[in-house]
């Protein structure tokens, strides 16, 4: 048998699956890597110092942990076009690439989309469910994320910690955002071609925590919250988180 006769069936199968233009015929994979930045500058946890553009605060970040859930793709009108129900990720921004990654395999219908959506925090059912039921390695397993409050029931949706320096000294800040009312939806609107497997880099702009919908000066607005009895600080952080994400790169 000639070599061409041996490989022709294989080549045909490949073309059938992928197409001559490299586009997949079946579900595509999306791998999202989150990159912590401060107004475009890379954040190195426990090391880099970042001056606010609007206040006198200079920030160093120690921890930015998030529980992300319910990933979906949006159409050109911003409506849900492809929802991955039950999807979840624990993102440890201070960690390695694998700690900041959310991969969805064989779940995305190939096509053109108008954006992506996810939530910070689990839905009410998961938030009040039995955390011991999540299997080992699952993002909502408390051993994986270290973000379950236990006593109060429910998860910390986002744990944002670090220090802020002003003219009078350096102090810690700690924002632990939880409870159902603080679950926040993040929409990133952008034309996206998902007709093939894609890697997406999403910037997480930590500057937005303090300067977004609300201006938060820790020394004035508050540098500590566990989402109760905090004069609305947690809800301000929640609102600011909505605008903290943007797509940097798709390849």
């Amino acid at each position, binding site marked *: 048998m000639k070599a061409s006769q041996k490989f022709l069936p294989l080549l045909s199968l490949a073309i059938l699956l992928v197409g001559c233009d490299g586009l997949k015929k079946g579900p595509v994979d999306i791998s999202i890597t989150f990159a912590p930045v401060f107004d475009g500058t890379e954040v190195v946890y*426990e*090391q880099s110092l970042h001056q606010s553009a609007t206040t006198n605060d200079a920030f160093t970040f*120690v*921890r930015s942990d998030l529980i992300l859930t319910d990933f979906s793709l949006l159409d050109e009108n911003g409506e849900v076009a492809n929802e991955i129900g039950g999807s979840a990720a624990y993102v440890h921004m201070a960690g390695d690439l694998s700690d900041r990654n959310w991969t969805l395999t064989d779940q995305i219908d190939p096509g053109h989309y108008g954006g992506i959506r996810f939530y910070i925090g689990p839905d009410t059912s998961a938030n009040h469910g*039995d*955390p*011991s039921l*999540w*299997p*080992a*390695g699952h993002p909502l*397993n*408390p*051993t*994986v994320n*270290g973000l*379950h*409050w*236990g*006593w*109060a029931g429910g998860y910390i949706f986002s744990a944002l*910690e*670090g*220090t802020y320096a002003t003219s009078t000294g350096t*102090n*810690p*800040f*700690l924002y632990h955002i939880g409870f159902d009312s603080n679950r926040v939806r993040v929409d990133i609107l952008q034309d996206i071609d998902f007709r093939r497997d894609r890697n997406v880099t999403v910037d997480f702009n930590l500057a937005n925590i303090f300067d977004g919908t609300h201006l938060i000066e820790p020394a004035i607005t508050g*540098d*500590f919250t*566990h989402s*109760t*009895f*905090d*004069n609305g600080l947690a809800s301000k952080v929640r609102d600011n988180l909505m605008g903290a994400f943007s797509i940097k790169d798709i390849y």
Partner: protein
Amino acid sequence: MKYLLPVVLSLLTLSTTSCNEGWNKPDTTAYLLEIPPGFPPPDIAGDNPLTVEGILLGRQLFYDPTLSGDSTQSCAGCHVSAFGFTDSAVTFSTGIRGLPGGRNSMALHNLAWGAVFFWDGRAASLREQSLMPIQDALEMDASLAAVIERLKASDRYQKGFREAFGRNKIDEEHLGMAMEQFMLTIISGNSKFDQVAAGMASFTASEQRGILLFNGEVNPSSPNSGADCFHCHGGVLATNHKLMNNGLDFVLTDLGLGDVTGKASDNGKFKVPSLRNLAFTAPYMHDGRFNTLMGVLNFYNENVRSNSPNIDPSMGKFANGLGLNLQDKMDIIAFLNTLNDPNIGTDTLFQNPYQ
């Protein structure tokens, strides 16, 4: 005849590859780890499945003093079951050379949920951790090569390793794997706290008040302001498994994680221990500086060094003190005592197999 050489070569290849592993695979009995109610499933490495044979071998090794340089001290010498698998109320344990170690012996329980081990987190697995004290000059001070030779010379261990892992498996790797299997089985989840969580017991008034203080955040604006213990010691495992600086010292004499990573930002960070079985595991902290739980609470209440390098942000509100009075502290201690599991020192699964 021309086919004889390929056939012979094929047979030789088979005999040295897949078939070899096949006939050497021991006939083991799988062991299902019993997870206490309310505990999340642990993530256990799949390359060392728990077996009855492997666990028994690991327990034998754990209690065997021949793993030390002069054959006088076993792992159990500094990890005594009656003391929650710490040493018997000493600050620093003494090794075979009569020299004290540098840190307090850690309690061993619920290790299946841990990610890193030792106070400074320098071991990424139990199998890795178990080999280090054997070689440490301040502890068992033995060479692994010498230990392996002793094990090979023992009929009991020839049989034990063969039954657990197969033939010709007495080596460092399988020594660590056996120890790992045994230590994974030391599970503590039968305290009064667990009984209450299961609806089979009730807290006293003092214990109830204690848990509220334990789980209350430090927040002057809140009517439920508490001691904020839950932040690092919350959940059924009573630890967040992280390495943190809790503000013990301004001047760091022990760099902890910083010595392992070489990063200045890690100086002063130590593993957050579980608060289970505290009645058995005094003294407390990485250097055993506090002999009593009241001493620990007094530290958190009024002596946190807010200017300690790399102090965790969660300790920020401790700088002004917690404002706990004596009754508050006694109630918190009452609650902590509900985390003591009487089985840790008596469960026959953990005891010395040679006695």
